[in-house]
């Protein structure tokens, strides 16, 4: 073995130490970084979010002299509907793959402090998802900014033009990034509870997509309101709205708060299951 090969090895931890202070975090980062799946998922999250948003923007127009009850900012964030599934799957795999391969036993042998392991995974997933969400959301909003005014959604007609300059539009974009982060964390917690990829993905996709479908069918106003207010996906997506805020079943930040509570409950329960059960 040559000295050239040996030299960089001790350097890397030194360089990374300020960024990733704890060895648990470093271990989790290495696990995620050295397989190709997460990178593909993150690329897909950006591509699908921006792509679906552009498709929705391109397909919607408001002809002159017609009142369109459309929220252009929410329209330009349509891709979040699909992007959320991808980041959730990433989070599920980060925990679930350890169980399906039996790696979790090795991980816990190396790091017996179990909540720290879950915490490290949560930190890494959150950081990655937030970074990717910023790109995806910014791309979607920028596309809306360029496309929608040409389709009749102009400021002159009273429509808020999607932008990142400030106001409700920036709040919605910022909220969309937080929403994606919270969804990923909730998926992480759910997987820690269920400890199985299949069951966790089924549950997470159910949480994301069932309540909006049920809400579309429910004719009972009480149940409709309950679903809109208390289900993680519906309440959380209130943050994406910029028009008709008075008529929302729940205000944007309160809705995101409901999602945050669900996320916290899922993570706590996941941590508890990890501590109490044999891996």
């Amino acid at each position, binding site marked *: 073995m040559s000295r050239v090969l040996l030299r960089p090895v001790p350097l890397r931890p030194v360089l990374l130490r300020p960024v990733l202070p704890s060895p648990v975090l470093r271990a989790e980062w290495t696990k995620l970084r050295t397989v190709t799946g997460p990178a593909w998922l993150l690329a897909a999250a950006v591509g699908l979010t921006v792509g679906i948003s552009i*498709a*929705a923007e391109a*397909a*919607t127009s408001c002809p002159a002299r017609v*009142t*369109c*009850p*459309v*929220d252009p900012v*929410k*329209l330009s964030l*349509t891709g979040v*509907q*699909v992007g959320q*599934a991808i980041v959730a*799957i990433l989070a*599920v*795999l980060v925990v*679930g793959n350890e169980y*399906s391969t039996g790696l979790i036993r090795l991980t816990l042998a190396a790091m017996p402090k179990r909540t720290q392991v879950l915490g490290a995974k949560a930190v890494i997933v959150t950081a990655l998802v937030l970074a990717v969400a910023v790109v995806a959301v910014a791309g979607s909003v920028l596309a809306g900014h360029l496309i929608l005014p040409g389709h009749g959604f102009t400021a002159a007609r009273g429509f808020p033009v999607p932008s990142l300059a400030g106001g409700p539009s920036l709040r919605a974009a910022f909220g969309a990034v937080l929403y994606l982060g919270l969804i990923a964390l909730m998926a992480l917690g759910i997987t820690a509870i269920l400890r*199985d*990829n*299949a*069951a966790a*993905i*089924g549950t997470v*996709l*159910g949480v994301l*997509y*069932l309540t*909006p*479908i*049920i*809400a*579309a*069918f*429910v*004719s*009972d*106003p*009480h*149940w409709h309101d309950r*679903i809109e207010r208390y289900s993680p996906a519906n309440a959380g997506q209130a943050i994406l709205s910029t028009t*008709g805020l*008075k*008529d929302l079943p729940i205000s944007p930040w309160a809705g995101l708060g409901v999602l945050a509570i669900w996320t916290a409950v899922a993570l706590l329960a996941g941590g508890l299951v990890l501590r109490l059960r044999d891996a």
Partner: protein
Amino acid sequence: MTVTVTKPSKHAGPSSPVAAGFWSLLHAEWTKFRTVRGWLIGMIVAAILTVFLGVVTSNAQIGCGPTKTGKACLPKIPIGQGGEAVNDTFYFVHRTLAGNGTLTVRVTSLAEKAAVGSGGRSPVPGQGQPGPGLQPEVVPWAKAGIIIKEKDLPGSAYAAMLVTASHGVRMQYDYTGDLAGLPGEVSAAAPRWLRLVRAGQEITGYDSANGTHWTKVGEIKLAGLSSVVQVGLFATSPGYQQIERSFGGASVQGGPSEATAVLDHVTLTGQAGGQRWTGLDLGNGKPGTAAPNPAGPNLPEFDTFRQAGGTFTVTGSGDISPVTSGPGTGYPTATIESNLAGVFAGLIAIVVVATAFFTSEYRRGLLRTTLAANPRRGQVLAAKAAVAGLAAFVIGVIAVVVSIDLGDSKQRNEGLYVLPVSLLTEVRVIVGTAAVLALMAMLAVALGAILRRSAAAITGAVAVIVLPFLLAVIGVFPPGISEWLLRLTPAAGFAIEQSIPQYSQVSTTYSAAGGNYPLPPWAGFAVLCAWTGASLVLALILMRRRDA
């Protein structure tokens, strides 16, 4: 070396060893399926979710009047000849006709007025709503003309020749029949002549632009038509609607409307009873007939007729049509499939189990053992798909029957009128929905074989089945794109749930969220079959090519 001859199991078919192999394979796969506790729990969860979400969230207590709620509000809706619930409210200027005869009129004008801004479920906020005053509007299916009717009671058999606001001359009969005649709007400059000829039970409709040159529009038979019938002039106009789609579905704005028609050159040949024409506001609260439409699209206070010389001016509101499930029909109605929203929840659970049923073979390396025991990969795939499909079908039938049964009585107790359907249709909805779940489970098995990893396969299954449906019903895309999503993706299969057909002669919001699919039930089912078949073929090709 000894040769072991396997004794055929009791499930084995009597004929060839290949068939025997397949039966024991089916048995083996069924044993695998039923002995994994998580999968059984998953299937039970699927059934519970289907019933719970479908029934609990299905509807609300209906209120009518200050004290009456629930069951007391159930409207008495007339039933048409095909067993379907019908609207039969119109202003009828009538006489009796004994035996054969001919009725001819000229229509010179049809004008509608609507009370825009009243009614409507969720008006757009911040936009000025005009009060419920009447203003001229085009109501496409407002109609007036001549009619031959069994009795002057709602729901009785009829045949009519009529002009409409936007759909030209039509011949309509027995609520669901609709034939097109002369196109174009009626006006004083372009009048329309209409004629109905009765010969026994046969009724023939003619139209003409000049009163001399007549064209036959249709000839129909009203089975069991009695000798003495009601004949006369009529006008009616269904609720006016403005439909706006937005995030979260469509909002309907509208209100009742009325149509006023001017008819002259009235000639009735045959044995007519009575000396003069008498007016009757049919269906609008006449004693002994249907109760007035509670939320109705009618304006009975304006319904009337005037006769000056040979010219009749008839004003009516209501409709002569089948009752549909869309908003704006006036009645608080529901369909049997409105209790099936929970099917989506059950579907996700079934998809998860079906996918894991295959991917777990890869994960544990069990597939090598399975294929060593039976090297025919097609048979292994078929056995797995059959077991998953059959389990999903059985769970589906149970969950759907319970959902519809519980939901039906709950809806009636709450005052919702459940639109009646024939037994055959109900069986089609129940068996069809269960078959859709079975096909989707088989699709999930195929995706599991193709993608080999549960995470990817479940995501793939949800992405092709649930996501298109979600994107279509929550109104992210404009209606055109949403409809194509429900034509081309596996979600098209849900069309089998639709129990009340879509009638082109009834204006309402035909949207997936309202239970209306762009494809007919069996066409949608066929699309799903094609997807499942193609996925199974692809899975088989890949299984043959790849090492396990």
